[in-house]
């Protein structure tokens, strides 16, 4: 087995792709708190994810998603959901930004595990340009849905 393959498919990724944390039924309008929804598609392979965010009042954001895709995209959505359970909204934005930067580093960056947690396991993906989109799909959906949830909260606040 080549070292690159082992770097790409770290055990964390293989485990998380099967765990699929956060993979659950979407609640849509049934949730009380400010919420957002995003649907992202990877047109090269047809993979897709639907992701919901809900601001839960304790400074956290709950994430629910459903989708079908490769191990990288499923593991990425799973790690994202896990991190959302452990971090504040502000911290999630810092992680999102660091993850985005890592994915576009073409393998030149050292992943900062203290910021990224399990998401640091994806550092090998950045050496495979064809797979960066797989890792970013759920994060793009997260950012989009979170923006909507925050906008909804603002609206409620001003109403």
């Amino acid at each position, binding site marked *: 087995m080549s070292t690159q393959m082992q770097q790409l498919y770290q055990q964390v990724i293989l485990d998380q792709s099967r765990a699929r944390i956060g993979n659950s039924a979407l609640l849509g309008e049934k949730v009380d708190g400010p919420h957002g929804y995003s649907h992202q598609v990877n047109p090269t392979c047809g993979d897709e994810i639907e992701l919901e965010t809900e601001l839960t009042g304790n400074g956290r954001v709950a994430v629910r998603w459903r989708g*079908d895709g490769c191990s990288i995209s499923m593991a990425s959505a799973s790690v994202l959901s896990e991190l959302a359970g452990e971090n504040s909204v502000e911290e999630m934005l810092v992680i999102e930004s660091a993850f985005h930067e890592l994915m576009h580093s073409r393998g030149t960056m050292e992943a900062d595990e203290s910021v990224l947690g399990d998401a640091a396991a994806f550092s090998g993906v950045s050496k495979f340009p064809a797979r960066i989109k797989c890792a970013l799909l759920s994060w793009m959906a997260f950012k989009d849905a979170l923006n909507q949830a925050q906008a909804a909260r603002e609206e409620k606040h001003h109403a």
Partner: protein
Amino acid sequence: MFARLRGDFPILDVRIGESPLSYLDSGATSQKPQCVIDTFTEYFQQRNSAVHRGAHSLAVEATDAFENGRIAVAGLVGGKPEQVCWTKNATEALNVVALGIDRASRGFGGEAAQRFALGPEDSIVITEMEHHANLVPWQQLAASTGAQLRWLPVTDSGELDMTDLESIVDETTKVFAFTHVSNVLGTINPVDTLVARAREVGAYVVLDACQSVPHMPVDFVGLDVDFAAFSAHKALGPTGLGVLWGKSELLDALPPVLTGGSMITTVSMDQTEFMPAPQRFEAGTQPVAEVAAFATAVGYLAEVGLEEIFAHERELGRLLLDGIAEIPGIRVLGSAPERIGTVAFDVDGVHAHDVGQFLDSQGVAVRVGHHCAQPLHRRFGVTASTRASTYLYNNAEDCDRFLSALAEVRPFFGVAQEGE
């Protein structure tokens, strides 16, 4: 012969990491023999000039190279050289027909073009196994003209379901567009039966020949199709070049979509007369070096022999199918007996993208994704598949390397069951 000709393809010596290359993605694009690469280079070194204009020696040579390409292609697929129109790719060739019919439906092209005119009373028929290139343009044409879009479904064995052929292709059908060979399943469709039905109802036949012309003997005249499209790059030629083949009386009546220089007889400030085919579809400067190189590719294919290539790939396809059957957890999409050496499959528990990545780590190049055929994948209950496709330069060793790598995929991703 097939063992020897591998030496004609320099890219086969490339190494992927530490592994030799087993290129099983010719369904997407073929590799090029040195003679094709040489023709391309020599054109720019020795013959480059504008075609169909200028009286100088180089212009004559360039024009010869360009027109000889048509002669070569007509020799390959039948018909006369003027039945061969150059396009950017096969997708453009199919769009030229669909958009030409759209223009005819709007009154362009005068009396002669009215034979193509479509309206809400008419239907267009395609199939569920089409590449998006032979699907989306017809969907667009239906939306634009109000014509109804219908399709022949696909059976579990990956063949066209002919049960309702007579009610799907009926008196309202004006266009029947289908693929000769499925780019995913490798199934060879019964063109004779489909053309016969089109003739009964007076529909025009448009054949997507992208996956047939490079891999088997094809005679458009014998098949009696009205229009056909294929690309050079899948048949040892360069990218940037496609072929629209048609019956002369139909090509000459079809309104052109791209207009401008090189395709006119006379232009005044208020109107323009177009040339007959093929020039009427070749507006602007043409890909001359590509045509010259493709002529060399066609010569190469003829020298090896399309019958021989077909038999060689059939044998490789057999090796792939037999080998895959031995590996647990792999489902091949389609099982048509009439097929080329293309095999698409689903690996239980492992996404196609991951399968392709794993095979690549061992130097095996395959295609992953929906292969521009989303409805067909949906028909088989998957969003993506992995496809191995062969060509004349592949050998049994490529198949062996593919199969032994494939056998490791499910264990690597931890989805193989105990005892497998």
